[in-house]
């Protein structure tokens, strides 16, 4: 047997490669990051996706347009309602159906409630990732109140399936308005507590300020959207630029920062919670009377063609692209999911930071793994 000569690698070229995930508490799902380390410094990150691939896009091809709705719930399960809305808006746009004002307003309120509960859960988990376990309990405590509102009106807590092409599954519950108003009143008192607990905390500042800087140019070239992109100064709020549902009749401001570090991604989401509450308050008293759904045909067939609709989920821009060949099933469905693009930027911004910063940066991107793999 021929003996091979072992050439020693020089010290400065040596890398220590570890797996972060697929089972890791800070990846919030089955995301596997192949992290190359030099000591404690991150040199390279290679995300491996596909552990929870469920073939949703392919499954959509064998389902009718009403059945697709329940699948989109399971993509980004924290902002399920907004995903449903995206598909419904696309189908309605293709069929040129006029949606009653009541539906539009209720959808907007529900979307904003979804955004609120999503940011609450993110706040809870982000605090926990950085070592503040109390945040987790407080965040989930307040989220529970929104989930109760969902449960009363939609019948589900996270997986709501409340939209259907042409409107809503059922009308709102008689208690809905009162409950939402109570919640807003309660949460306006609670949100400053979040600030006292975490935003002002000196340890939190040290761990997030200046960490994982993302410039505006990079945000645009990587396609980073949502609060992550807006923290870098990339004005990408679909609600503002291409208003859908009832967003054209409410006043709200787009949260923009220029710093683009982890701390400002955090502040952007906290500010968005305030804005969401403003939007809900403007609409909750003026829900117009009318039908909660338009009568649609039992089997919906889209005319031949290609349709695209984008909405702003809690994490960024969700695009739904449908090719129809005139049958009851779509020929092809493609989801442009915000998390996939947001994940792609991770290597770029976490390079050169410590491995503990990687947890903070990954947390601030707010990744939902089934939406990446879908």
């Amino acid at each position, binding site marked *: 047997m021929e003996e091979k000569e072992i050439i020693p690698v020089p010290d400065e070229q040596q890398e220590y490669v570890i797996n972060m995930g697929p089972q890791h508490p800070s990846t919030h799902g089955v995301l596997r990051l192949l992290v190359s380390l030099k000591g404690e410094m991150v040199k390279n990150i290679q995300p491996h996706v596909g552990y929870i691939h469920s073939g949703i896009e392919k499954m959509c091809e064998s*389902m009718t347009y*009403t*059945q697709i*709705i*329940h*699948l989109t719930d*399971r993509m980004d399960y924290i902002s399920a309602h907004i995903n449903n809305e995206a598909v419904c808006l696309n189908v309605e746009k293709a069929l040129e159906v006029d949606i009653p004002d009541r539906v539009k307003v209720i959808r907007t309120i529900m979307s904003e409630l979804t955004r609120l509960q999503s940011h609450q859960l993110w706040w809870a988990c982000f605090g926990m990732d950085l070592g503040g376990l*109390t945040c987790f309990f407080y965040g989930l*405590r307040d989220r*529970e109140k929104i989930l*109760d509102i969902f*449960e*009363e*009106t*939609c*019948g*589900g807590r996270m*997986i709501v*399936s409340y939209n*259907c092409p042409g409107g809503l*599954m*059922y009308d709102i*519950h008689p208690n809905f308005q009162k409950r939402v108003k109570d919640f807003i009143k309660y949460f306006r008192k609670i949100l400053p*507590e979040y600030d*006292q*607990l*975490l935003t*002002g*905390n*000196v*340890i939190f*500042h040290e761990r997030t300020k200046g960490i994982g800087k993302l410039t505006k140019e990079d945000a645009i070239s990587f396609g980073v959207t949502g609060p992550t992109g807006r923290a870098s100064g990339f004005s990408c709020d679909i609600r503002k630029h291409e208003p859908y549902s009832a967003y054209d009749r409410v006043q709200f401001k787009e949260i923009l920062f220029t710093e683009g570090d982890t701390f400002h991604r955090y502040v952007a989401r906290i500010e968005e919670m305030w804005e969401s509450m403003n939007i809900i308050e403007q609409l909750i008293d003026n829900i117009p009377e009318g039908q909660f759904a338009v009568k649609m045909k*039992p089997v919906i067939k889209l005319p031949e063609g290609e349709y695209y609709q984008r909405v702003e989920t809690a994490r960024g821009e969700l695009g739904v692209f449908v090719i129809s060949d005139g049958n009851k099933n779509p020929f092809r469905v493609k989801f442009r999911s915000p998390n996939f693009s947001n994940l792609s930027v991770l290597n770029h911004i976490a390079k050169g930071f410590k491995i503990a910063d990687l947890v903070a940066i990954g947390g601030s991107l707010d990744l939902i793994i089934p939406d990446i793999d879908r």
Partner: protein
Amino acid sequence: MRSIINYLKEIILGVWSLLKGMKVTGSYFFRPGTIITQKYPSNRKDLVMFDRFKGEVVMPHNEKNEHKCTGCGICELNCPNGTIEIISKTIITEDGKKKRAIDKHIYRLGMCTFCALCVKTCPSNALAFSQKFEHAVFNRALLIKTLNKPGSQLMKGVE
């Protein structure tokens, strides 16, 4: 000198920010009324779910053991993942005509995604959601349920 002052200032402000956070957590310590933890298994008796809560699909029967299901199969068609299967039979009505009726309405709870399409699209409102949420069983076969009760019949007046 200035750097020392800044250093001390940072320490004091840092400790102050920690104290501010601890004030929030400490205040909850003295307000036990704000605790929302439910003692779940022991409060089972007075735990009421919301009316619309999607627990599992059931077929309501009246006191005469009659249901509203005509066996049309629309729920089976609309179900996205084959949860529902309808086995129909032909019966002969009182006036001697042949008619389709359900033999078994099979519902596989383990496959159900609670999208509510079956309940919503049922033309005769035969299906409903129950508020039961404790579905765990030891045997997978128990998750396959027959919704119509044995010996049940179609309610009069439902076509």
